[in-house]
């Protein structure tokens, strides 16, 4: 795997009037899939659009595939694929017509018919863009982003509003892109999407990156996990607590239902089960509740609704 970054953003600041959309953002993305998560208005789209060359940074530096997206735009544009959040197609154009057109702007595009087939756009037939369903419009925008065989693809909420089948198809395509060595920068509101697809996740809030790492790292770090089991009521929780590492908690929530909190690892699981064995307890329905990316996200960005 290549290790040089596909994206380097340093101390990026972008203001619109007196509103600061991006406030000293640092982000390094390496080859593979990087998901950019954040509440609405966090600065995701502004950051991505600055990388695509649409916005000029007020300060800070942005390098995409080693190039300045504004000043070296002509060299960069053939190497990237862009999927906008919406639009981007002549309202009177047919899906295949627009896709063939974008293909013609590139030196060695993908086989357009195969791409149409793969994304289920064949059924669009002679329908003009404005009469396509939202899902068909999304898939066309995705196809337009990849048809030029780019090295790096920017996908801004590619599965927003898609039905489950179309969502799967999009995920599969992103996995295939990654397997073939195409890097992907993906903004999304779907935590499962980020968890399933990405090598790295950056969580943005208020114009800065507040957490960055693999989905596993983010889920492991900080947040406590929980182990639950059921046994006979009235076990000696104090004795269990003594057997556990110092920072753990243990409680009988309802008679016969126990919860152990702390850093849940194989060692902790062994400690609990051997304590049960010593006390002649058969732990039923033992379960480990891992924190999901969504838990981490809500912990970091708060649970209250944003304006």
């Amino acid at each position: 795997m290549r290790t040089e970054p596909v994206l380097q953003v340093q101390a990026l600041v972008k203001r619109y009037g007196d509103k600061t959309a991006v406030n000293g953002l640092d982000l390094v993305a390496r080859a593979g899939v990087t998901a950019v998560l954040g509440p609405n208005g966090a600065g995701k789209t502004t950051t991505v659009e600055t990388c695509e060359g649409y916005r000029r940074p007020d300060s800070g530096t942005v390098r995409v595939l080693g190039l300045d997206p504004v000043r070296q735009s002509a060299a960069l544009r053939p190497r990237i694929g862009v999927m906008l959040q919406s639009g981007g197609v002549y309202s009177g154009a047919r899906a295949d017509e627009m896709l063939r057109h974008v293909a013609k702007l590139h030196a060695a595009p993908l086989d357009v018919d195969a791409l149409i087939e793969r994304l289920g756009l064949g059924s669009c037939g002679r329908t003009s863009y404005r009469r396509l369903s939202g899902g068909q419009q999304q898939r066309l925008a995705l196809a337009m982003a990849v048809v030029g065989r780019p090295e790096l693809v920017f996908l801004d909420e590619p599965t927003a509003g898609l039905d489950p089948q179309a969502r799967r198809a999009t995920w599969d395509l992103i996995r295939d892109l990654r397997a073939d060595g195409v890097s992907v920068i993906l903004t999304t509101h779907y935590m499962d999407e980020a968890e399933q697809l990405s090598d790295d996740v950056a969580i943005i809030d208020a114009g800065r990156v507040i957490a960055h790492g693999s989905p596993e790292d983010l889920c492991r770090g900080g947040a406590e996990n929980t182990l639950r089991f059921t046994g006979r009521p009235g076990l000696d929780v104090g004795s269990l607590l003594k057997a556990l590492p110092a920072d753990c908690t243990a409680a009988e929530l309802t008679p016969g239902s126990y919860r152990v909190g702390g850093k849940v690892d194989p060692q902790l699981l062994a400690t609990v089960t051997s304590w049960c064995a010593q006390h002649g307890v058969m732990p039923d329905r033992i379960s480990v509740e891992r924190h999901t990316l969504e838990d981490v996200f809500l912990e970091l960005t708060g649970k209250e609704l944003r304006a």
Partner: protein
Amino acid sequence: MTAVGTGSGTYTPRPGAAPLPRMIGAQAALETKMLLRNGEQLLLTVVIPTLLLVLFGSVDIVDTGAGEAVDFLAPGILALAVMSTAFTGQAIATGFERRYGVLKRLASSPLPRWGLMTAKTVSVLVTEVLQIVLLTVIAFALGWSPQGNPLAVLLLLVLGTAAFSGLGLLMAGTLKAEATLAAANLVFLLLLVGGGVIVPLDKFPAAAQDVLGLLPISALSDGLRDVLQHGAGMPWGDLGILAVWAVVGLAAAGRFFRWE
């Protein structure tokens, strides 16, 4: 997750821009196709000029002075055709392309911005050629007998196209799409009536004539009429007016056009 580089190779990057002439050609072809497919645009660029030519050329509604009505009308209708495509049609189409993110999406494609603008110009010129062929055939059928220097006509049409394109793009690049739609149609209507297209300018009060004569549509229709109806040489005054509009309009469009 599978490792990078274990795929089938279908999507293995092979980035690169197509050669510039191919990109511009493809863009011009698509723009022209979109224009010819759009019913409202065809109404504006084909149906209205044709109807006006046939109606006013065969029925004596407006006093067009001495000689055949069609000899007065045909140059004005040709000027109207140029305005309908280069100004009204281009302003509305570009305004909505901007609104629907087409310009934005193309801006991140390998096609450079000047390439997009070149393609738009080619598409406007292709449409004008089609209009002029159609209108000329109809005018001949109505007994038109044009005179004058074809080079002067060509120069007028080119400068007129440049002037109207600048104004159309200025409107499309600064106003909202809906405002552009309304304003471009309104301007089309006002200039149709007050620009010497079907109503001779000398029907207006003298003070108004001086101002109206400076409009690009008046300069174009007057210049074409001088050459095609009266067999004049180079209509330098009208060419000068069109050149000023072209320089001012294109410069302002270049300065103020916003891509999204």
